[in-house]
């Protein structure tokens, strides 16, 4: 949050907000929660057999699927836990250090 240097004065007054902190449904998808990642998983598509083990194990549902295929990782939400790399039966996912 604070990294983005948000201008608080541009946000709405308390009088304009909905009570109780209620927001629209599914708002978590717009909230980047992966920015404290130390390592990022990178898929080697030459080794990937599309077995979907990573997709099933990922606690953040960060694997992007298009036309029934894994096509990438949503790095806004991936926290770099490394479960996918550990579970991949084909060693197709490598954890790479994040460059800060």
């Amino acid at each position, binding site marked *: *949050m*604070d990294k983005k240097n*948000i201008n*608080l004065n541009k*946000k*709405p*007054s*308390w*009088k304009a*907000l*909905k*009570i*109780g*902190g*209620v*927001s*629209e*449904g*599914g*708002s*978590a998808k717009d*909230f980047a929660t992966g920015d404290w990642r130390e390592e990022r998983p990178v898929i080697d598509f030459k080794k990937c057999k599309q077995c979907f083990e990573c997709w099933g194990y990922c606690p953040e549902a960060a694997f992007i699927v298009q036309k029934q295929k894994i096509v990438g990782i949503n790095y806004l939400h991936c926290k770099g836990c490394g479960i996918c790399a550990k579970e991949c039966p084909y060693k197709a996912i490598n954890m790479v250090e994040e460059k800060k």
Partner: protein
Amino acid sequence: MNKNIKALTANEAQAEAMRQIEPDVVAAYPITPATQVVEIFSQFVADGKVKTEFVPVESEHSAMSACVGASATGARVLTATSSQGLVLMQEILNIASGLRLPIVMAEVNRTLSAPLNIHGDHSDTMGARDIGWIQIFAADVQEAYDSMFIALKAAEKVNLPAMVTTDGFILSHCLERLEIIPDTRVKKFIGQRKPEFSLFDFKNPKTLGSIDLQDYFFEHKRQQTEAMKNAKKEIVKTQKEFAKTFGRKYELLEEYKLKDAQRAIVVLGSTAQTAKEVVDNLRKKGEKVGLLRIRVFRPFPEEEIRKALEGVSSVAVLDKSDAVSGIGGPVFSEIKAALRNEKPKLSNYIFGLGGRNIKLSEIEKVYSELKSIKENQVSYLGVRE
């Protein structure tokens, strides 16, 4: 109109009020001395007298959690508890008020462990005074019953939860004469809840209880404070409407022979009834004494208290709990802050801890000591020195 007069305990009367309100959901766990409220209400459910969904939970933490979930769907929700139950709920009590859910609770004042004691003092509710709940302290059974409707109506207007408290055993288990309002008139008075949002509004899905960080949390808390300020106006308005409809008048404060009083006691709850007798006795002897009972403690009626005590020269605040702060009881601290060390002079008496009875002679002693008040002195009334 034929009046429906009954003899009920406060527990029975509050359960009866809950039957008449007929909320969508009641989630509650029994605890002495509030057990009967839950027991009687669950009997109403079992007998088919209400359509309420009754959730018999495994703890008070779960009770309040279920209340929060139900209230967030837009349902009208009631519960009841006391003492350790209220404390176990505490985490979720804050969530109920923070999410602005107007849950209404019948709360029977009982002290807190340890040492273990099941009797009435205000330790439990005073511990819950700064968590965004409206607090009404009833002084008799009729008031405990009537206040359930007033609290519900006002709470739903300002979207804050409310507790209507009675004194453990003194009111909860004491039979008193009261007038029961016909069911249809209760329903008409309370109307329908109009929720700000509902999790059952499937066309407009909502996120509730999401993370609220440095950029928004403060604003939501600011709204809560404003709601509590508005609650004061709303309670006054609802009390007036109640008086007009049912003939019984309630105010934020009850002033008793205070107009020309030189010495006064400030107290909450049923002790005021005992103190009134002392006031009457002393008045017969020509002593200018009076009484101020704080009926609505949250929102705190600061201006009204200042005005009520304006002409009084010395005031004793009687606290039925100790803040264990070294500077007296919680009500004393608040009155002291409200008066800002202006006139009248104040002193504090802690009394009745663990349900110890207060005697007429002890209250008389307080009035007598007010003649030569030791300012800001904290005394312990009825303790063995």
